């Protein structure tokens, strides 16, 4: 249970210090350290990244959600296709999903041209892929559970009974 609590806190803010997590969970710092080490060793925690609001930067960052349909044969499974696609550095997320298409793939690049080129030259030619539908991200309002934008406006009275 305490491991789960630690995990939830890390998901909320991976930069919480060991001491902060210990304060919030009533664990010793050494217990928190051990829980994190175990979570990392077991591959439950796979990495730590910043959640970025790209709209706040002047540099262009283009992202696209790509729906992929695939045709499987006896020798090729979903895992094989996923393994091939996931190796591309342009692919930031890849999920097998239920519904009208098979894979949901997130792609990032420095320009629409770069992303388009990647999809048309690297993804579409994969023999098992029968269709790609690309949705360019125009604005992101929430990432990894964090609302993006100008932050919460706290209009409560500063002191109240």
């Amino acid at each position, binding site marked *: 249970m305490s491991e789960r609590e630690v995990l939830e*806190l890390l998901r909320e803010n991976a930069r919480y210090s060991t001491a902060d997590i210990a*304060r*919030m969970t009533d664990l010793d710092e050494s217990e928190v350290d051990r829980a994190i080490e175990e979570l990392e060793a077991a591959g439950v925690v796979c990495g730590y990244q910043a959640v970025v609001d790209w709209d706040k930067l002047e540099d262009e960052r283009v992202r696209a959600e790509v729906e992929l349909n695939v045709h499987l044969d006896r020798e090729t499974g979903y895992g094989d296709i996923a393994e091939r696609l996931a190796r591309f550095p342009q692919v930031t997320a890849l999920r097998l999903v239920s519904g009208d298409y098979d894979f949901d793939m997130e792609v990032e690049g420095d320009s629409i041209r770069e992303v388009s080129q990647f999809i048309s030259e690297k993804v579409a030619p994969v023999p098992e892929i029968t269709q790609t539908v690309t949705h360019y991200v125009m604005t992101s309002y929430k990432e990894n559970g964090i609302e993006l934008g100008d932050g*919460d406006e706290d209009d409560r009275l*500063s*002191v*109240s*009974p």
Partner: protein
Amino acid sequence: MTFELADRVQSVPPSGIRRFFEIAEERDDVISLGVGEPDFATPWAARDAAITSLEQGKTSYTANRGKRELREAISDYVADRFDLGYDPDEEIIATAGASEAVDLAFRALVNPGDTVAIAQPSYISYEPGVTFAGGEVLPVPTTEENDFRLTVDAIEQAGASEADLLVYCYPNNPTGAIMRESDLEPIAEFVREHDLTVLADEIYAELTYDGHTHTSIATLPGMRERTIVFNGFSKAHAMTGLRLGYALGPAEVIGAMNKIHQYTMLSAPTTAQYAALEALESCENDVQEMVAEYDRRRKFILSRFREIGMDVFDAKGAFYCFPEVPEGWTAEEFAQDVLTEQGVAVVPGDVFGAGGEGHLRVSYATGLEDIREALTRLEAFLADHE
């Protein structure tokens, strides 16, 4: 023109928190731990219900006691959560916030000269409410030695055995103290023996931590018929601005409260009643998520206060903690200096009455990053004044 204001109004001093509010509002770098309301928005389902009711033009008065559907939902909720049984027709009234319910009860029960014992430190409106109703306030101090719980000894020492009413708020604003069933039993025995009526403000009942749950004194033998329970949607359901509270009690008292209510408020805000109904029907998970988040902040803030060398009471309820002011300061001096020098707003404990001096009310109904920064500033403040 000069007005001759009523004595009972003139006799009540301005709220002690007002000055801190004014200083805090003048600055834009203040982190406030002085806020007595949730930092969460009202759960979406409740907001949607309010919006839908407006779209459907449901903006007329309701029954004086509140929509019957809402009273039924309140009856089911308090039965389920707190083992309280009240008849929606006769024993429940919906009000414009729990504060209105408290005021109605004072006006319904207090005759001029009646004595009202108030367990303190406590929510700041009880004392003026008694005065406005023409009663006399008898403070019953609670102390940290007793975990800020009300005790029969404290009641007797304050001379409250002859009082007419006993008022308290648990889980407590401002201390964060709770009362367990074993604490309430001797109080109940005393109350029955001395024929007192209890006004139990249980607005923070959902907000208890460390495995504690809330027990209402009205569930103890012989207490239902002499207790008025107050609750509402401001705290646990994060609906402060919607102003929706309620009182539970014997039909005779609720009827008298309704008589005042129908001539003054007429009915609680209709939009808020629709939001409240939805809050009871579908927002339990939202409440539990907020409670879990308060609990994490509570643990964090208690731990940090101890680390920076300030003693703090081990609060188990509401969303306040009640640290001790270091030696050499009064609560007001400390609160004022830390606001001026470090831009951290807290409320001096003496504002909340007897037993509050020497402490600060610190709210953790604010984001963890702000709590962390506020405590860092407090640490720097203490270092500057070593």
